[in-house]
């Protein structure tokens, strides 16, 4: 039961129980007493709103469930709170039901909160929706008011692609059209709410179609390893070969235990434990399928989420993903769009805030096995946690980063080659070479180290190649002649290119005084080389003289010192220039980091 605050959800359910004779005279009397105590006429909602606070404030705080036994089948009604602040409770209720009843008060119509709730329902993938227009007893012209609301509701739901099964007029306090057909609205020929329930269909797990067996744990019994889990889709059969994702190990099911029995097969919905014919690595979090019928695999997923967390999030945020029975850290890679509840249209956004519905992309270092086609498996949906708090629920739209595999038998054909796009989906960013050139003491190394620390803290794979440091190892044999300086740049550029190819953000800090050498360096990593001019006037640099080299050069103790006794060819068209004479290191670092982030986005 969903709807805005005060639309009458709890009252409808309470009244239904009373009308069906499921409330004892003693309970009715108790209800009357509780109502009188609070100075209200008999309040049917108290049958559900059991908390003192709920009764005192006449609102529902948390979901409640009631059972209704009917001749054809039993129903469980979940009463959800309408308050915007309580959407975590609404969604908890929505995630456990098969169909929804939306309550609209005739005097209020479709409110913003109703729009939000409908959006949540659409996001949850509800196929079946009943709508009731309540409080018709308040309308002067009930038929006119109802017809107008019905048209409004229809056109609104149409925008969401939802077709309601019925739209029924109600007066919950008086009992019209709940369990008993109205006596006063002769124009209404349709069913009561109770009658229309027969048109709803309960969800049954799909026994046909692909197999999904989600592993919860591995138990040792009598020297055997038994893999315990839930069949979520398809049928698991003894004697068949299954593949465990994402590692793609495979084995034949040699036994299916439903203690104390053994069975030959288990259908969707069954919790079982299986034995395998050979010992392979399987642990909690794995998902089994038949070969050739597995989930999609990748390092990133695009998903629709409802945000529950109090703090807004932006790209770069690290969260924990729980999908199926697996858990892993992920980075919020991108906010693709945020849905506007007013217009229901998606629009680009920089942040996702509480109660937003948004499309986002998440990237993980681990491989994610997820269902982007099967709607109801636990690897087709997920929650996100920040610390230990659930901050979002999501449904997978697509898995990015690797084509759908044909199954275990194709592992060899896939080869061990790792595609560049796989690297950047795993890392969450591209590799690149950021070449810092400038006079001695211009601030290149300091800037590189500052940027490295900050980028590392943002989860980036980053490495600094520092000219002075490399001269103590790789370039130990080189001096400061023009030739040696060129060779120094060439080698450093080659190493940088290898690292960048491997997915690293490489920051090189070298004087690299000659334009020609830098042009060659650019050619070693085409498309991803960025020349950053760290400028600083000679006077300032000499004033800093971090290593005391200027002083010694002036004294003639160091020959061919750039800026003093050797030329520095400043870049004519650098990709980025930072001026450390006028900017502090944190300011320069911010400029550099912004530039790097912009140029290593997936």
């Amino acid at each position, binding site marked *: 039961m969903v709807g805005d605050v005060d639309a009458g959800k709890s009252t409808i359910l309470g009244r239904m129980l009373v009308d069906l*004779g*499921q*409330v*004892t005279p003693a*309970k009715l009397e*108790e209800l009357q*007493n*509780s109502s009188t*105590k609070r100075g209200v006429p008999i309040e049917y909602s108290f*049958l*559900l709103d*059991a*908390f*003192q*606070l709920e009764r005192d404030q006449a609102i529902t*705080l*948390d*979901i*409640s*469930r*009631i*059972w209704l*036994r009917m*001749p*054809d089948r039993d129903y*469980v009604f979940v009463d959800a709170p309408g308050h915007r602040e309580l959407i*975590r*409770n609404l*969604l*908890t209720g929505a*995630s*456990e039901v098969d169909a929804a009843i939306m309550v609209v008060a005739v005097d209020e119509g479709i409110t913003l909160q109703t729009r939000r709730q409908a959006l949540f329902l659409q996001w949850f993938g509800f196929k079946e929706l009943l709508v009731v227009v309540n409080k018709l007893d308040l309308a002067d012209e009930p038929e006119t008011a109802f017809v107008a609301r019905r048209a409004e509701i229809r056109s609104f739901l149409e925008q969401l692609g939802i077709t309601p099964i019925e739209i029924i007029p109600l007066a919950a306090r008086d009992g019209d059209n709940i369990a008993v057909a109205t006596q006063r609205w002769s124009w209404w020929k349709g069913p009561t709410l109770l009658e229309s329930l027969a048109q709803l269909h309960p969800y049954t797990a799909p026994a046909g179609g692909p197999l999904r067996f989600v592993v*919860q*744990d591995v*138990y040792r*019994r009598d020297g055997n390893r*038994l893999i*315990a889990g*839930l069949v979520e889709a398809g049928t698991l059969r003894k004697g068949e070969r299954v593949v465990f994702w994402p590692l793609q190990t495979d084995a034949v099911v040699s036994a299916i*235990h*439903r*203690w*104390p029995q053994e069975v030959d097969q288990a259908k969707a*919905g*069954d*919790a079982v*434990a299986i034995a395998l014919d050979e010992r392979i690595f399987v642990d*909690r979090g794995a998902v089994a399928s038949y070969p050739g019928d597995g989930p999609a695999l990748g390092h990133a997923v695009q998903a629709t989420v409802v945000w*529950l967390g109090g703090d807004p999030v932006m790209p770069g945020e690290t969260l924990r993903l*729980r999908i199926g*029975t697996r858990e892993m850290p992920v980075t919020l890679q991108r906010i693709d769009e945020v849905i506007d509840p007013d217009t229901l249209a998606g629009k680009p956004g920089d942040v996702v805030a509480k109660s937003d519905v948004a499309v986002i992309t998440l990237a993980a270092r681990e491989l994610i096995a997820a269902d982007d086609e099967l709607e109801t498996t*636990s690897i087709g*949906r*997920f*929650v996100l946690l920040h610390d*230990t*708090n*659930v901050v979002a*629920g999501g449904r997978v739209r697509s898995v990015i980063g690797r084509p759908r595999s044909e199954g275990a038998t194709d592992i060899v054909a896939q080869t061990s080659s790792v595609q560049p796009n796989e690297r950047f989906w795993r890392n969450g960013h591209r590799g690149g070479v950021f070449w810092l050139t400038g006079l001695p003491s211009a601030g290149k190394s300091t800037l590189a180290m500052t940027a490295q620390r900050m980028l590392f803290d943002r989860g980036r794979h980053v490495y600094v190649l520092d000219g002075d440091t490399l001269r103590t190892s790789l370039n130990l044999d080189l001096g400061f002649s023009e030739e040696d300086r060129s060779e120094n740049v060439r080698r450093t550029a080659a190493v940088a290119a290898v690292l960048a190819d491997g997915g690293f953000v490489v920051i090189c800090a070298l004087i690299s005084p000659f334009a020609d050498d830098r042009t060659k360096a650019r050619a070693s990593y085409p498309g991803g080389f960025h020349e950053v001019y760290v400028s600083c006037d000679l006077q300032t640099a000499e004033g800093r003289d971090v290593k005391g080299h200027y002083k010694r050069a002036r004294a003639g103790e160091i020959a061919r010192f750039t800026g003093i006794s050797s030329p520095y060819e400043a870049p004519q068209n650098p990709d980025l220039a930072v001026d450390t004479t006028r900017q502090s290191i944190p300011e320069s670092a911010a400029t550099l980091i912004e530039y790097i982030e912009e140029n290593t986005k997936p």
Partner: protein
Amino acid sequence: MPTQTDADLDVLESRTIYILREAFSCVSPIAMLWSIGKDSTALLWMVRKAFLGEIPFPMVLLDTGMEFPEVYAFRDRLVREWQLPIINEVCPPESTVDQTLPPAARHAARKTAGLRGLLAREGYRGIILGIRRDEQAIRAKERIFSPRNADGSWDPRTQPPELWDFFPYEVPDGAHVRIHPLLHWTELDIWRYTRREGIPYVPLYLAKDGMRFRSLGESNITIPIPSTADTLDAIVLELEKTREPERAGRTMDSESEDAFERLRTTGYM
């Protein structure tokens, strides 16, 4: 009268087994409260199924010393026959609990105090309980995994979301999570399941001289109901017809409007 096949019981059972396995995998150390009533005994049966004949965590009886003699006899029999790992936790005396509570509720408060003592001593982070949502309107609001504060109290206004089967199992040090694998069962389901599986039960549930116990609490605060149901079949038939609430014989629930809420928010089961 409509007859339901037992297929619905398989669905209920699998869900409970799934929840038990999640609890055991994700929460440690963990224990289960076994009140020896029909619900927690059915749950104990499903623990054996979930873990393939083993019982991998202790069964705890919060013992007020006031249970019926038949209950103690049943406990001793099952401990022996099923080799149960059991902790018989003797609860603090009535003089130690809140004296503003109505008299019958003080037994519940003793159990709450007993549980608090057990948690402090054993450091459990998870406690499995056989409560059901259809028992009582406050319990109808429970989550499957329900985090408790360090003092064992429950704040229903700040319950975390529980989306699909992603249960919130992490709690801060000193706090614990209550795990409720039977919330989705009804009283009728429990008896149909007990009948189908041949699960043992305390004989007090069967009618004798026109009376039977529908719900078992302490012997001095639980009253039997008029009934002729002296077999499981008869109990099932009786429940299919009745409108009377299950806990009508539990005096502590109805001593005041908020009695049960007060008990639960301070840590009662």
